[in-house]
């Protein structure tokens, strides 16, 4: 059972793109209607985008007033910078990620999350709200997974990247008291699509997005972010897991990288040396043999020669000797 504050959840697991709270599917729109979805998420590509309008096409019932928390994994790409055709200057490229829009007219962005490329080669994330407020995250590296956690109340917006709170960049406008600002809280959702059109320096995204969730409360708990990142989103939004703690331990048993001798016996014919990797060495100072107790690399079983691991005597008991079946060996 999901927690009450969960209003939107898409985890991109199966072939259908299910929004799990409303139990409705998102649809694939654009030129290419075959979505690239795997356990890693939805690969945003070209002119394709996803659209969801909730139950009876009325929008997702988010019940958002003053607070929300939006989280998702993103594997960002950086296509570089665009060139302003008038001035020749370099411009950041805008790439839509996810936008929640007014469900009554689908004309107003309520929460708009967009990526921007930067001259450093990194990207940054911009969060815009209907009231006119917007802010950027700090820059983050493309081509590696990042977790984004955006939360707000009427006092302000917080953006966390990989559970680290960002110093908001280029804040613009004033955070509004209510998120929807006069509109109702039934919202449509677009992924990899913007209502603002695709003019100069605005491109479709090319990253991968996964595990998108929306709460209608503010949550800036770093331990919750850790649970989402380390254990999965269910550990914060599903009653079965929210009350559980997890103790983790990695048990390690690689072959040692540094070989040491830990025993030696001289039986007057050979010297035997035991090593910490389990190998036993036998030989003289001029010649050594090695073997590992569980290796069969020295066993021979091919061609016309049939080999039994153990010979059987006439009473059916193991003799303990290797036996060649119906073959001879010429030396």
């Amino acid at each position, binding site marked *: 059972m999901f927690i009450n504050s969960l209003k939107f959840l898409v985890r991109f697991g199966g072939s259908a793109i299910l929004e799990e709270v409303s139990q409705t599917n998102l649809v694939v729109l654009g030129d290419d209607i075959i979505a690239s979805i795997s356990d890693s998420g939805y690969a945003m590509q070209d002119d394709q985008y996803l659209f969801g309008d909730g139950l009876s096409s009325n929008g997702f019932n988010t019940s958002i007033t003053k607070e929300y928390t939006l989280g998702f994994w993103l594997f960002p790409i950086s296509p570089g910078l665009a060139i302003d055709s008038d001035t020749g200057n370099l411009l950041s490229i805008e790439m839509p990620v996810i936008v929640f829009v007014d469900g009554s007219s689908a004309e107003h962005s309520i929460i708009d999350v967009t990526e921007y490329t930067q001259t450093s080669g990194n990207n940054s994330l911009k969060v815009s709200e209907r009231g006119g407020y917007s802010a950027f995250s700090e820059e983050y590296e493309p081509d590696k997974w990042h977790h984004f956690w955006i939360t707000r109340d009427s006092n302000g917006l917080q953006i966390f990247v990989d559970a680290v709170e960002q110093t908001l960049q280029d804040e613009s406008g004033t955070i509004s008291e209510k998120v929807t600002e006069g509109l109702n809280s039934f919202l449509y959702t677009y992924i990899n699509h913007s209502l603002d059109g695709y003019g100069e320096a605005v491109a479709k995204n090319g990253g991968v997005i996964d595990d998108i969730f929306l709460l209608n409360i503010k949550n800036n708990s770093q331990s919750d972010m850790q649970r989402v990142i380390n254990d999965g989103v269910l550990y914060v939004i599903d009653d079965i897991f929210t009350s559980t703690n997890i103790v983790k*331990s990695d048990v390690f048993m690689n072959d040692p990288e540094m070989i040491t001798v830990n025993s030696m016996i001289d039986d007057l014919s050979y010297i035997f040396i035991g090593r910490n990797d389990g190998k036993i060495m036998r030989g003289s100072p001029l010649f050594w043999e090695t073997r590992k107790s569980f290796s*069969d690399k020295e066993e021979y079983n091919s061609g016309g020669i049939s080999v039994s691991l153990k010979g059987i005597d006439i009473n059916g008991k193991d003799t303990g000797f290797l036996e060649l079946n119906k073959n001879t060996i010429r030396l």
Partner: protein
Amino acid sequence: MATLKFYLTSLEPDLDQTNYSQSIGGYVGNSLVYPETTLSSFMGLYDTNLSLVTPSSGSWLEWQGIEYINVGNELMKVPSFVNGSIVVSQRAYNNIYNVHLAGDIARAAAAKELFNDVFNDSYKQYRCIAIKNVSTNSTDPSNEQVVYDLEIYIKQNSRNTNSNIRIALEQPSSEYISGVSTSWSTMTLIDISLIDVYEDDYFKESFLKITNGAASGQGKVISSFDRATGTFTFYNSFSSALDFAITPTYEVLPSPAQRVKTGTVSPSVESSDVTQFFHPDEFTPLTFFEQASVFNISNLSPNDVMYIWIERTVEKGNEEFLNNDFVLNLRYKVSE
């Protein structure tokens, strides 16, 4: 909040276990599977600076020479270890990146190795470790310290395709108790409050430890328990009953797990106290929750234990074992 720790097992009770290959059942040893401490600061997904709190022993001696540190589900490769301020050589050595908060447990995962290269004819070997609830009610009785609905699963099996891990659970047949003795001798200890509470020999083979007076810390293995009189009888006598306090307090530790002769022998999984070997994952964890038992072992009160048998199987002909680790997860609730 409850604290669970992983311990090695040993032939005798109340012993340090320094030989990993001898962690093959029996009593809960005094040695953790790995030395551990906590993070002193946050470590982001891709950070390489790791800061550790000095271990409770006050020394990094046990950490010298280690190559890997485990925090959460993640294994990190570290350079030659000097102190708690480390620049990690490789994050996510086991391909799992985690975010780590200050206070998270860090373990010297490769200080010693639980498994060695001695296998049986089926290329299997076995080890037994114990999970113990080390919470102490006395430190903060307001905190919830009972572990409810304990579940155990393998978060990550060996990344070496020629190596496989399965686990089985064994519950002790008797639980932890503590009490006050009403009369005693060097060979017996009586607590009349236990009369008709537990069955005859319920505590047989468990370790009874005196917790006050001059004999505090001394303990003996129980050879029998008499339900009618509440009498514990020991295999060996205490050196002197005079060391006992006027009103001796005692504790009886949970009964030991079965002990196998060597690490190449499989434990018996034929009783109701032991599960079969499984590869439980996050969504099908191992638990005793659904099984009838003497007491509800899925809820671990402070000092209660659960034993985990680990079966490692290697494919014949494997020349070397790299990428060879697995991640155990214990999942529990803090309220019923």
